[in-house]
């Protein structure tokens, strides 16, 4: 008897799931984003026990599990810890067209790294250890994209 499973036309059903969410940003990140949106400032918070400074700020210290009520303003400059040049397009998730650069930036005055774009430089010229500064959007909505990207710090301007 012939194997019918080898002969059947297997159909494909195209689907899509679209579900809206309204996520509360919480008190800690709301304060961070409100400062960014309203005053163009980047704030971090510090653990009272071990002194670790987190940016973006966190609810609790990952080491000590302490509340982080101690807030500090950062200068908006930092050092590239690592980076990648993204070469593939993924319009479903990427807010910009490839090639573009992601970096993890160790912000001056903080102990943790911040993920963001690095721009205003040819991707091939980005280096780990490079000094960068945050560039803010003119129109800000209160989210991480209020920081447009980081760009190389000009010599003599605090680098």
């Amino acid at each position: 008897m012939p194997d019918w499973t080898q002969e059947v036309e297997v159909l494909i059903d195209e689907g899509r799931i679209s579900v809206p969410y309204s996520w509360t940003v919480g008190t800690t990140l709301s304060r961070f984003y409100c400062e960014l949106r309203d005053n163009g400032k980047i704030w971090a918070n510090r653990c009272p026990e071990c002194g670790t400074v987190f940016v973006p700020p966190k609810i609790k210290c990952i080491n000590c599990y302490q509340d982080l009520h101690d807030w500090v303003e950062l200068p908006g400059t930092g050092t590239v810890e690592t980076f990648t040049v993204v070469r593939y397009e993924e319009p479903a998730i990427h807010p910009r067209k490839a090639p573009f650069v992601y970096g993890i930036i160790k912000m001056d005055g903080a102990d943790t790294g911040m993920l963001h774009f690095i721009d205003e430089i040819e991707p091939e010229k980005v280096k780990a250890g490079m000094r960068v500064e945050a560039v803010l959007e003119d129109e800000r909505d209160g989210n991480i994209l209020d920081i447009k990207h980081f760009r190389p710090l000009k010599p003599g301007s605090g680098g």
Partner: protein
Amino acid sequence: MEKVAIIGVGQTKYERDKKETFAELVFEATSKALEDAGISKDDVDNIVSVSSDFWDGRTISSMAISDASNAYGKDITTVEGDGTFGVLYGMMRILSGSFGVTIVCAHHKGTESNMRGITNCAFDPLVERKLGIDAISSAALQARRYMNRYGVHEEQLALVSVKNHKNAMRNPLALLPMDISVEDVMNSRKIADPLKLLDCSPVTDGACTLVLAAEREAKRLSTSKKRVWLKGTGHCSDAFRLGDRDLSDTRALKDAAKRAYTMAGISDPRKEIAVAEVYDAFSHMELMWLEGLGFCEDGAAGEQMERGVFNSDGKLPVNPSGGRLSSHPVQVAGLAAMAECALQLRGEAEDRQLEDPQTALVHGINGMCGQSHCVWILGK
């Protein structure tokens, strides 16, 4: 502690665009595992399913495969991750005394969806997700940090890909068996620097099922040849946010490995482990995890790879199945690695059989860039 054994193993072939549904894949793998164990469906009293609602595109994804996994009239529960965590829960259920013979089954059809979109959703929607980061671009950030910290070269990463694709040539279930050179990897399309196409694992469809049993039941139901013992396990997680970690650091894995070695009574893994399946979703990860597992010093895995230490004929064969670089059925990957090591210990790994291994190590992860690690020691 009471001993728990793997007494049956079943796997589908790992392929792209498999025409079977999730349930058909689970049915195939589970039927094979029951047949391999030589037991009936009625010998099993509960099922641990490994699945992800986002990947499956349906909520409570284990319910949809419950009939196929032999859960009809039995208990079924779900664990996320790559299957290694499912085995952990399966073992805990047995050791609790509340459950008997346990099926752990994992299924994955990543090629039906959008890997980049799904892995982007693993990131905090309030912070990193809006930036469009995903599994590949985050792994690339990790690869660069690791290479810079230890002076590791891209060619050393490429060697991992060359080795694992070559190993896959002896695995009839693997998706990408290939005889390639370092040059081929170096010349493959740039994806996210420093990662190139052949440094990245291909998302693959498939299913795998293991049958677990406590010592008394294992001895009643199966022959000694089929039994592979779970001798030790350890599990540890690192910080969620990428920037809160040094991505080149393997502290969570070191902790997980230490716990697993202690439980298994292993004092020198370099001498006592005969074969390892390590989570090589991206080539640099195999190097990092080999260091975290204590098989070499931090930053030294690249040189050891050059010396062939981890080749199939080397001192410690790593990823004889071809690894995730040759087929990456994400939710299934760790369970497939368990299956490979079980087959190696049973002496049933066909063309890729290593010479009489006594102790094997399986390493699985969950979360981006190896946030969480699960280490298993298996023995005869």
